[in-house]
């Protein structure tokens, strides 16, 4: 043990050396991994998945380990979802990923459920969410979870009769929880839709089997709170304009003149802005979210255009006219500045939002 000339016993020196190496490895990983990751070109995950093979092809080459490959892809899908949730909230490849996983392992019920939740609530692609769940139900007719989720999605899309039907079907399957019957009654019974949605999301959150699904339910609940707060503010602003003949100049005006007792709390804690030119109330969080999603989506499409055609599009309109995108939606007052030679994008922020967004 000439390597460690310490005044310790042979075994103690060896143990100390092992610990030192373990600490060293942890330090190297802890310090250098984030640096290497930050030096990688940004936003590559989505691009990488453009070339992600189909589930059938992966099944053929998995040498009988379809379930294992599906499990590994499941982890990759969670990572994909998590990374985009923290950054651009754009989920271009979510549908493809969950399709591949469920093709590889048609009994992977959690993949249908989580995939549909992501597609319906985050990727704003409810049609694909319904397709995924219906396919899952066809392949797993004895699992209550899938018709239950179908019922929930139908309820969110105001198809109460279908929602009730699926909740009832779920309730008849083995292992179904008591809340399936209750949800069927909710969907078909009387009462405010918002109140029922809130109650269902709350139960979904409490019953969620994984933290990510819980976070999605929590986000949905906060979004409902945000919508309610925006409704309150918009109603007060309209009342102000009707009563005084001119739009309020700020949210403080609404409170000062008694149209509002106090400004409601923003569940995302980014605040609200009142446009004094027209009295419209905006949520900073929702506005930012829309801008970030649109910019990410345009940026990725520009990259894809370049890959396929060897040059950047001459203008952003080219993306629309050549079928790469159907629309480029931005909140009022926002616009995109595009540099065709480099493909760079910049957002023009209206004065109203400039301070709020800079402050972030």
């Amino acid at each position, binding site marked *: 043990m000439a390597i460690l000339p310490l005044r310790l016993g042979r075994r103690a020196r060896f143990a100390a050396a092992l610990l030192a190496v373990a600490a060293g490895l942890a330090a190297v990983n802890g310090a250098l991994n984030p640096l290497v990751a930050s030096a990688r*070109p940004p936003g590559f995950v989505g691009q990488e998945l453009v070339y992600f093979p189909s589930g059938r092809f992966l099944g053929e080459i998995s040498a009988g380990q379809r379930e294992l490959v599906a499990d590994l892809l499941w*982890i990759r899908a969670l990572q994909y979802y998590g990374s985009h949730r923290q950054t651009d909230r754009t989920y271009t490849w979510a549908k493809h990923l969950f399709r591949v996983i469920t093709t590889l392992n048609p009994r992977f019920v959690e993949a249908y459920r989580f995939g549909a939740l992501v597609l319906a609530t985050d990727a704003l692609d409810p049609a694909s969410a319904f397709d995924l769940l219906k396919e899952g139900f066809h392949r797993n007719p004895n699992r209550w979870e899938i018709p239950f989720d179908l019922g929930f999605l139908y309820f969110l899309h105001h198809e109460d009769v279908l929602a009730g039907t699926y909740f009832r079907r779920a309730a008849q399957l083995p292992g179904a929880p008591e809340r399936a019957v209750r949800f069927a009654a909710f969907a078909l019974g009387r009462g405010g839709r918002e109140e029922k949605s809130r109650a269902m999301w709350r139960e979904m959150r409490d019953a969620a089997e994984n933290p990510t699904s819980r976070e999605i339910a929590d986000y949905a609940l906060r979004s409902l709170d945000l919508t309610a707060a925006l409704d309150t503010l918009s109603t007060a602003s309209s009342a102000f304009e009707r009563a005084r003949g001119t739009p309020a100049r700020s949210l403080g005006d609404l409170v000062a003149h008694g149209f509002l007792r106090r400004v409601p709390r923003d569940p995302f804690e980014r605040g609200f802005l009142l446009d004094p030119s027209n009295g419209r109330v905006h949520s900073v969080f929702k506005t930012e979210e829309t801008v970030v999603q649109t910019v990410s989506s345009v940026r990725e499409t520009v990259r894809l255009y370049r890959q396929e055609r060897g040059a950047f599009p001459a203008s952003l309109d080219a993306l629309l006219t050549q079928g790469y995108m159907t629309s480029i939606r931005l909140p009022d007052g926002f616009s995109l500045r595009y540099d065709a030679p480099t493909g760079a994008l910049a957002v023009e922020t209206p004065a109203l939002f400039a301070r709020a967004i800079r402050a972030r």
Partner: protein
Amino acid sequence: MNRILLVALATYRETVRRRVFLAAVGFSFLIFFAPLLAIPLASGQKETLVKDIGLSFINIFGILLAVLMSTSLLHDEIDRRTIYTILARPIRRRDYVIGKYLGLLLMSAANIGIMAAAFLAILGVSLGRLELPLLASVVLSFLEVAVVTAVALLLTTVSTPLLAACATLLFCVAGHFVGDLSAFGEHFAGPASRAALGAVSLLLPNLENFNAKGELVYGSGVSLQFVALSASYAACYAVLLLFLSALLFERREFK
């Protein structure tokens, strides 16, 4: 230092003369031609297909050869009892381990270098231009091999060649899922499993640090800073594993 170099050169000479080295290099040449045959079926993906397959095979063959050589070399010397002759000379065991490692790296550099030259030549003929930016992926593959060789050498000092080879290949697979492991822990595991997964992902080599094939084939390439940071990571990780290998080899008793 001279002793380390002597061991390294002897190791290099011994490994490149082995049939497995020549077979691996020869076979990889055949593999590079395979995508050219598949071009008519590639439906517009000709370029990416040729690059993908080429870079992947350089990586796979580089790792396989390094694992095979690293795990068999030490065992062969013990088996043939030549190690007694070497260790009877005025050479410290740690120098022997470091020399072996450097010799194996030289062999891998030769293997990857030959494969890369052949690949770029075939690609150049096929596309009509030299794709030098892909060299970054070749360098990163070599860095990955450097880490894998250190893992293989460490396991060889405490295990049989077959077990060491299998365990090293498992390390390679796990090394590409380190990020997923910690993500899985964050999303699904309980506190104890999360801590265990976190600890494992802190100890395992993150081999994704050497994987930029996607960026190089489909994206905008990688920066010099990325390659330099990956190199630093490989160097730090390999040095620590070599230290441990030397430590274990010093404790080992030869009968």
